[in-house]
């Protein structure tokens, strides 16, 4: 029975940002104790033809939390967001309400509101167990479950959230939750950057005055931390019951910066709902729906993918379309097994002039032992293993052993930056961490979860301090007494790798074993690898592929996380160690090789004459650099494959082919490799890639890739994955490019860096290349200023005479405006209208490759300067 909003409440609901007061209504119904109760709910009042979304808030928020879900409702859907009794604008209670009562209350309410299936439940915080309790009692109506920062179980041996523990101290609880508004305010203040003041006010508005906050305190007291707590059985019933929901689609939307429901609660939920789709919003905290307003849109997209029809009442066979899987085919380590007993060098590490080597026979044996040891130590198929070990013998053994046992390697290098590496690894949630002492210290500092495996040696006390459960040596020894487990299927997950984060936060990319194998096969074809080849890898992912390619590999003496530390001598020594024929190195590494070539001895120069092929990947490689590399490696053919963490390689081009192609609009990356399909999604006038897929020449569009080696999915980024694979069978790369008349692909820049002028979209790379041809220009970044659709172009140049200096050092500042002559010449060659030419001493680049310009940052800086703001540094 619904009734009018009381006159004292009405005005409170009228002017809240994002809330339509027409959604608001009061409902009276008799609870399980026979008492008539009055609830306040938000209800869009639609007679559902598809389904109903039932939203349940936690403590101390209210239905206002779901306003965006109601606003974004698709046709045919009813949305009901309840204010729990004692909370929001529902009636106030005199006594505490237990979890079991709150679950019953929700059923009473849905009956009173005539809610029928199919129902998708959505919940936050302690609304989670309540909504799940309702879900378990209404399986016939249940079509899906959406959960945001919540918990159903206190993981064993883990301390409950500090904030909750503190609030549970009785006197403190009354003071924090009831007498004062501390708890109410604190809940809305967990976000960073903080929420708009009017939203914080709206969230706290029903909790003004101690008498209105009684249930806020009671709610905290009802969290069953103690084993004899009266609500313990109800919570345990929910926690156990959830594991039976394996046939119900589930979506977990998570704010990992939540100090209350930290990621270990996400991991706990994933053990109960292993089939759940997950999206982590890297910047979001406890109030994930506030910090990431896109949660509403994402939830609805997910719900729409369930393909509910009015007649079907359960979502048992619904779900997001499963990506195509590789079935059958060899596993990544097939070649390694074939070379069991082969005494030739498989992996060589060159450190300080000393070589550490391992033969194929030893490698095969160690991988088998470690796999058996890992299995004996309890590592199971699907477990995630983070590797904080530099490339070399130990890393190779660990990676192949993990694959052999069916575990998933998680590789986030320090090239992301220390903090970003921590975020990436925490997000992937490893069960095990392999680390050298430095790596384990970092894992401790970065609060990476997972059992520790020490690679190397440490004094017992330090080992204990770092919480090392095992060491590599122990596990190898253990494995000698056990049989390795059966080989995993080729479609099991094999790796989570991370994007460099040059174009946004680092994203985890999940690969299955078959996809990794396909990648290795493509590399083999691209490099025309034969049994006579040997490889030097100064580029992280490829350092591991030697054994899989069935050829020996050496790692040069360098800091792999800082590619610019590779010297010409170190490269030559590594080449000499195994008589290498092929080199993989990033442009930054090659730049330093050229810069240090004067130190090469005659013997080292001779060793480099044996190299037939150099592959430089990771970022665009300027032509001048390739020409310089050719001087150091005169015999080698120079290639620059194109690809990305999600699909590598895609295309390949040689220096000779680049010279033949000449200049064009963008970077020529050559023809797609055999077995890889590339097509384009043309740009609209407003710069969105929404056109019909085409491979027509001279049409610019988002580059879409298809092939057996393309990523399986983004890891725990459901919405990102959904967007990147929205054209079935294709991975949208986020790069913009075009084909020329000869079928060569040209990359024009990132879709995110597209400049949308009133005259249409402009891609930056071609303009940058033309400007960089000028003698007075060392480097250039082209960015858009102003609102999308009417942007102006700014060209930010590093003049050839610029000398980067330490920031602290005072110096005479050059004018930020380029002089008239430079401005004029830049305008003349740009080929597009240029509003301003600015000068800087250096452009910001990514850490991993030290060569991808952070155009987003340059654009922010240029926009500030060109608005008359402070100059500073980009």
């Amino acid at each position, binding site marked *: 029975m619904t009734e009018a909003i009381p006159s004292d409440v009405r005005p409170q609901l009228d002017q809240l940002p994002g809330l339509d007061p027409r959604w608001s209504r009061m409902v009276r119904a008799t609870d399980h104790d026979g008492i008539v109760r009055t609830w306040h709910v938000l209800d869009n009042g639609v007679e559902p033809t598809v389904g109903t979304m039932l939203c349940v808030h936690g403590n101390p928020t209210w239905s206002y939390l779901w306003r965006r879900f109601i606003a974004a409702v698709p046709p045919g859907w009813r949305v009901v967001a309840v204010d729990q009794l004692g909370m929001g604008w529902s009636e106030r209670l005199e006594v505490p309400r237990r979890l079991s009562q709150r679950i019953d209350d929700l059923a009473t309410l849905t009956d009173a509101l005539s809610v029928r299936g199919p129902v998708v439940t959505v919940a936050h915080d302690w609304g989670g167990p309540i909504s799940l309790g309702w879900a378990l009692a209404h399986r016939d109506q249940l079509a899906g479950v959406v959960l945001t920062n919540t918990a159903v179980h206190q993981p064993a041996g883990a301390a409950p959230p500090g904030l909750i523990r503190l609030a549970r101290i009785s006197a403190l609880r009354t003071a924090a939750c009831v007498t004062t508004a501390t708890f109410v305010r604190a809940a809305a203040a967990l976000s960073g950057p903080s929420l708009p003041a009017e939203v914080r006010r709206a969230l706290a508005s029903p909790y003004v005055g101690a008498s209105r906050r009684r249930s806020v305190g009671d709610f905290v007291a009802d969290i069953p931390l103690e084993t004899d707590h009266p609500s313990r059985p109800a919570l345990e019933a929910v926690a156990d019951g959830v594991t039976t929901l394996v046939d119900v689609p589930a979506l977990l939307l998570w704010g990992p910066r939540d100090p209350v429901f930290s990621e270990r609660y996400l991991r706990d939920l994933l053990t109960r709902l292993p089939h759940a789709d997950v999206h982590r919003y890297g910047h979001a905290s406890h109030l994930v729906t506030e910090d990431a307003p896109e949660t509403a849109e994402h939830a609805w997209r997910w719900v729409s993918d369930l393909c509910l029809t009015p007649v079907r009442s359960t979502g048992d066979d619904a779900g997001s379309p499963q990506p195509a899987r590789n079935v059958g085919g060899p596993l990544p380590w097939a070649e390694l097994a074939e070379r069991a007993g082969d005494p030739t060098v498989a992996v060589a590490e060159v450190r300080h002039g000393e070589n550490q080597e391992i033969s194929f026979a030893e490698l095969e044996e160690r991988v088998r032992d470690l796999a058996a040891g890992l299995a004996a130590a309890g590592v199971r198929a699907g477990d995630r293993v983070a590797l904080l070990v530099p490339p070399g013998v130990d890393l190779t053994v660990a990676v192949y052993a993990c694959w052999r046992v069916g575990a998933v390697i998680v590789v986030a290098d320090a090239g992301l930056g220390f903090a970003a590496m921590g975020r990436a690894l925490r997000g992937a949630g490893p069960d095990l961490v392999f680390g050298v002492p430095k790596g384990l210290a970092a894992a401790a500092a970065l609060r990476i979860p997972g059992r520790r495996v020490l690679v190397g040696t440490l004094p017992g006390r330090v080992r204990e301090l770092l919480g090392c459960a095992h060491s590599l040596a122990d596990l190898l020894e253990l494995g000698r007494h056990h049989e390795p487990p059966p080989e995993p299927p080729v479609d099991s997950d094999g790796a989570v790798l991370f994007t460099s984060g040059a174009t946004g936060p680092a994203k985890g990319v999940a690969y299955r074993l078959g996809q990794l194998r396909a990648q290795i096969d493509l590399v083999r074809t691209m490099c025309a690898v034969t049994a006579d080849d040997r490889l030097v890898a100064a580029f992280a992912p490829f350092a591991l592929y030697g054994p899989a390619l069935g050829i020996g590999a050496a790692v040069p003496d360098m800091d792999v996380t800082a590619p610019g530390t590779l010297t010409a001598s170190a490269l030559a020594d590594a080449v000499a160690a195994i008589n290498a024929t092929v080199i993989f190195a990033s442009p930054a590494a090659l730049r330093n090789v050229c810069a240090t070539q004067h130190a090469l001895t005659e013997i080292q120069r001779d060793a480099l004459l044996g190299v037939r092929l150099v592959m430089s990947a990771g970022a665009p490689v300027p032509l001048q650099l390739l020409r310089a590399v050719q001087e150091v490696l005169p015999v080698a053919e120079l290639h620059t494959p194109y690809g990305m963490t999600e699909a590598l390689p895609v295309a390949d081009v040689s220096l000779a082919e680049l010279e033949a192609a000449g200049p064009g609009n963008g970077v020529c990356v050559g023809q797609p490799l055999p077995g890889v399909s590339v097509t384009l999604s043309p740009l609209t006038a407003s710069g969105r890639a929404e056109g019909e897929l085409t491979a027509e020449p001279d049409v610019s569009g988002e580059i879409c890739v298809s092939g057996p080696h393309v990523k399986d999915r983004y890891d725990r980024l459901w919405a990102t994955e959904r967007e990147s694979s929205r054209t079935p069978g294709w991975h949208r790369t986020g790069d913009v490019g075009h084909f020329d008349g000869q079928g060569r692909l040209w990359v024009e820049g990132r879709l995110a860096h597209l400049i949308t002028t009133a005259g249409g979209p402009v891609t930056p790379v071609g303009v940058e290349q033309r400007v960089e041809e000028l003698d007075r220009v060392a480097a250039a970044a082209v960015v858009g*200023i*102003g609102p999308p659709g*009417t942007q*102006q172009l700014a060209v930010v140049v590093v003049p050839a005479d610029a000398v980067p200096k330490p920031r602290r050092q005072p110096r005479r500042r050059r*004018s930020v*405006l380029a002089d008239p002559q430079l401005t004029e010449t830049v305008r003349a060659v740009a080929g597009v209208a240029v509003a*301003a030419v600015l000068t800087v001493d250096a452009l910001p680049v990514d850490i991993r490759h030290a060569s991808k310009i952070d155009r987003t940052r340059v654009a922010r800086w240029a926009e500030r300067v*060109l*608005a*008359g703001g402070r100059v500073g540094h980009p």
Partner: protein
Amino acid sequence: MTGASGMLGAGVASMLAERGDLVTVLQRRPAGLGLPEVLADVSDAAAVRTAVAGQDAVVHLAAKVNITGPWREYQTANIAGTAAVVAACRAGGAGRLVHVSSPSVAHAGSSLVGAGADPADPRRVSGPYARSKAVAEQIALDADGDALAVVAIRPHLVWGPGDTQLIARVVERARKGRLPLVGSAAALVDTTYVSNAVEALVAALDSCSNAHGQALVVSNGEPRPIGDLLRAICRAAGVPPPERRVPTRLAVTAGSVVETLWSLQRLTHRGTVASDPPLTRFLAQQLGTAHWFDQRHTREVLHWSPRVGIDEGLDELARWYATGAVS
């Protein structure tokens, strides 16, 4: 056409006359255009009514344009003048009114980056010119209706050969070494080359039926850093480019001090101060912050786009100075 003696007004009147429209011009002093003219102050309601009677359309450009001076002068010229024009259109049966306004009627001193045309708001703007023009635009657009189609056109910083406002002042200051660069001088500023502004006003006159009731900003759509523009203008005029730099905040403070001193001087030496103050707060803000506009809607509604680019316009200006046509 009111206010035909200036660069823009003369341009519009001539273009209309050349294409065969019967043009009558109204201003205080003879415009020398060889067109029928009424010599009167635009606030003289009776004179305006006589001039407008029998006309099909009115382009109202006459205004007091300055950065200082007593409010009542702005009130008379800009507010009372516009009210007189609107009343005359109604009385005389003119069906179309193109009211020439200014982008400054909608904005305070903050930077404008790809901005649209917000409604005029006299409470938000700074300085007597902008305030009076904001009221004037409200009067004009309020009169829009079935009988009278009104369009407000806001050209932004019109310049060109023969310009006695922007260009002449910049050149004069530069010649005296009194043209400072405020801040980094990188603030992007939209300007309008005179022939483009002329064509936009004529286009507005022809597009009244679909543009009426609207305020539209008109510019070249080619914003440039203010420092680049000032240097280019000086080069075209053959005067030394500005070199002195003043931090933005200092300039704004100095501007308000100078404004105060100037008005005190006016009070004590009534009528003896002929020139403008060297720097006002308004000018400092104009020179130190971005103001450029989204031109997509304007161009679509007016079926107009600028034909002369900034660089071409600067070449024209240089030719004009080179032939010694300095007034």
